[in-house]
């Protein structure tokens, strides 16, 4: 079945594209082989052709400025005289290749090229990012052709990869092109299709929805990037405000600087994330949107072939009485259609598999990038443990009931001024006696958060406390008491051990 199909296609191609028999027959057999393999293993194909696109170079001529890309080919195939080739091609050449492929392999799904012009905004065509994105897309384009069991054996593709002077070859092809144009026109002649076979109708519907969904995802992704960039702008302003604040403070300066630096790190991480998304995520989405377009156009061509066949069949049916035998051209037409269908189905299957892998990779990449982003933030926070502690404290406190015990009076315990709002997980108390010049200041109670409580946490929390020493002199002498206050930091907080909560209440 397959063999006969292959031969029939070969027959077909010859009058249309003038493809020499030499290149076409191995293509058919290899495609057959690959098609059979496809069912077993997606990646099971033996690779004997490797193409890389790299090293973009800018060319400035009197007439125009353009970019060329170096294409390096390594292959063990017999079609290639040398094991390695290296040529430079520009976008136009890729465009040429694609249209050639479309002409000579009308039954196959040709991978899409990146858009020729990027309309959105004024994009600098020669900017590094643009060229790099395009290089990647072109690389992908060639890789997809190389992986294709039929397309990779196309003669034009071979020339594209190997010819020193592609323009000479192009000119030579012009004569053929005019002829080609006619035959294409002939194919697309106005026959009307009655009904699409169910499976192709399903593919068509699928493609419509798929393109629609991808379009939406593309818009969402762009929107997210836009939002993230705006967020980034605000973050960039947020950080320096903390720096300004730190300039006002003494003891607090360091942690505030820490916060500022943290925010700085956050914004760097965020910037990386958006860059990655723009560079890796969006192009793949675009490629698939374009892909669905070329799928649709192939599908349309198939419909034309079927329509032609149906029309001819009808015409024959009318004259059936005269000649019982079905004429040869109708038979040929039927073959052509079947061949088309088989090719298309195989390509569709390939494409589905590719798509599945690509999206899996793509979406996992997206998830990975986001995870990395989130992992970066707390990691940098720990460097400034003061700020990290703050967040931990904060974290604890919101979960625990805060102690609201207050010890008031002159001869007993006084909590430090200004419990931090809704923290209150620890209280620092001082014992002092009125009328005495010396003041005993000690850490009397600490309300601990429930487990997990670690000694490390404790020392950190102590570190943050500012011990204030308060002397109250002779309350009785003056109606308005005089207060002197001073501060000193707890120095040897490492030696402090948590006391029982009972000692303080």
């Amino acid at each position, binding site marked *: 079945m397959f063999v006969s199909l292959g031969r029939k296609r070969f027959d077909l191609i010859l009058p249309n594209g003038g493809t020499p028999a030499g290149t076409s027959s191995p293509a058919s057999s290899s495609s057959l082989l690959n098609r059979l393999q496809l069912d077993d293993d997606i990646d099971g194909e033996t690779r004997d052709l490797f193409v890389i696109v790299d090293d973009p170079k800018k060319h400035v001529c009197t007439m125009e400025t353009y970019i060329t890309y170096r294409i390096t080919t390594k292959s063990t195939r017999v079609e290639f005289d040398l094991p390695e080739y290296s040529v430079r091609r520009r976008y136009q050449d890729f465009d040429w290749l694609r249209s050639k492929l479309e002409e000579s392999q009308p039954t196959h799904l040709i991978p899409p090229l990146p858009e020729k012009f990027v309309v959105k905004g004024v994009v600098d065509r020669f900017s590094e990012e643009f060229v790099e994105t395009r290089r990647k897309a072109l690389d992908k384009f060639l890789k997809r052709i190389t992986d294709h069991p039929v397309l990779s054996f196309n003669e034009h593709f071979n020339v594209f990869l190997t010819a020193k002077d592609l323009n000479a070859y192009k000119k030579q092809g012009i004569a053929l092109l005019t002829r080609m144009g006619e035959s294409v026109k002939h194919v697309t002649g106005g026959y009307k299709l009655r009904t699409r076979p169910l499976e192709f109708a399903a593919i068509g519907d699928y493609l419509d929805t798929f393109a629609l969904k991808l379009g939406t995802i593309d818009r969402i992704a762009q929107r997210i990037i836009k939002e993230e960039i705006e967020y980034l702008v605000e973050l960039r302003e947020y950080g320096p405000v903390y720096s300004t604040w730190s300039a006002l403070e003494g003891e607090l300066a360091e942690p505030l600087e820490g916060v500022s630096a943290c925010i700085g790190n956050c914004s760097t991480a965020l910037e990386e994330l958006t860059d990655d998304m723009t560079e890796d995520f969006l192009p793949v989405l675009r490629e698939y949107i374009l892909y669905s377009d070329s799928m649709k156009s192939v599908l349309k061509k198939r419909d034309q072939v079927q329509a032609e066949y149906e029309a001819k069949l009808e015409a024959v049916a009318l004259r059936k009485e005269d000649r019982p035998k079905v004429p040869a051209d109708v038979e040929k037409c039927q073959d052509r259609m079947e061949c088309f269908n088989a090719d298309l189905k195989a390509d569709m299957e390939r494409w589905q598999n590719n798509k599945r892998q690509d999206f899996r990779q793509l979406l996992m990449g997206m998830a990975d990038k986001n995870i990395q982003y989130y992992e970066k933030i707390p990691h940098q926070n720990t460097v400034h443990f003061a700020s990290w502690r703050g967040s931990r404290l904060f974290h604890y406190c919101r979960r625990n009931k805060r102690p609201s015990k207050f010890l*008031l009076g002159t001869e007993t315990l006084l909590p430090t001024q200004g419990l931090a709002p809704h923290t209150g997980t620890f209280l620092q108390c001082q014992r002092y006696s009125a009328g005495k010049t010396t003041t005993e200041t000690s850490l009397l109670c600490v309300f601990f958060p429930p487990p997990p409580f670690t000694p490390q946490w404790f020392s950190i929390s102590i570190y943050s406390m500012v011990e204030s020493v308060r002397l109250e002199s002779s309350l009785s002498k003056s109606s308005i008491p005089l207060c002197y206050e001073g501060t000193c930091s707890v120095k040897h907080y490492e030696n402090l051990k948590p006391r029982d909560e009972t000692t303080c209440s």
Partner: protein
Amino acid sequence: MTHNNFWLKKIEISVSEAEKRTGRNAMNMQETYTAYLIETRSVEHTDGQSVLTDSLWRRYSEFELLRNYLLVYYPHIVVPPLPEKRAEFVWHKLSADNMDPDFVERRRIGLENFLLRIASHPILCRDKIFYLFLTQEGNWKETVNETGFQLKADSRLKALNATFRVKNPDKRFTDLKHYSDELQSVISHLLRVRARVADRLYGVYKVHGNYGRVFSEWSAIEKEMGDGLQSAGHHMDVYASSIDDILEDEEHYADQLKEYLFYAEALRAVCRKHELMQYDLEMAAQDLASKKQQCEELATGTVRTFSLKGMTTKLFGQETPEQREARIKVLEEQINEGEQQLKSKNLEGSMCKKGIQVWTNAKECFSKM
């Protein structure tokens, strides 16, 4: 004083509940307000006295009255600020409604802090009105008004323009004033930027929510990828809705900042009052000098009394600034200490965990595709 003994006991203060109420105001108009339950509990004393629990309802305007009273009666003390009356520095999704339950809850916390701060202040905690505020439900307003603090306040406020006429400003106070001005501007800037940051963050998360929808729609047309997409979409929904909690938590952080902002304002108020006093002092000194001169010109017998008067004025003038400075130190400590906790950038902690969780889940889904 009788209540002095009471304060020797240990006492717990908490604002434990908030309740929406409807009542009639002074104009006999229907109005809705929120009342807050204040619970006070004197803990058992060492000599074995009975435990005394007390609770009463107060509304925000009464807290305001208390603070106004304290402001007038203790001009040299930095009176702790109240939580904001109306939500300020809001980002667009945050409700600016005074009856919003989240807002009421945050205000409840703020009011509790306010009371605790006063209670922990060595001078303010001994105030009789404050004590009555905590213990006497009815007639409290009348008692406050009887003190006539409003009259005092009025006469004080009239002379605010003294600011520009002080001849010898005290450097300590100008520094302080400078600091509080700067602090205020920095923090309000910070709050503004934070609101914008919150807005943007909200946007980023919510747009991710669209993935949820598209993924599940897309999953309908896919075979092998369908399940993965479907559950990934679900995780995206979770991710998008997690932002509400994150930002609600962050609001508490903003409340702390706001407290410092209002503290800075309180600090400025004290500085203003100092300037006013300084001005009075300078005027008195000037007056004294001119009178002295007059007296010397007229005769030499009665000068002594004048100078004595001058001395006392001077003493008073000098004494209060010192006290104020002491207060201010307290305040700065308070601010410092509170700020230590602040180093939070707290959203990151829980946000990161959540973010990682969601994206890991999503990744798992994708890998199953």
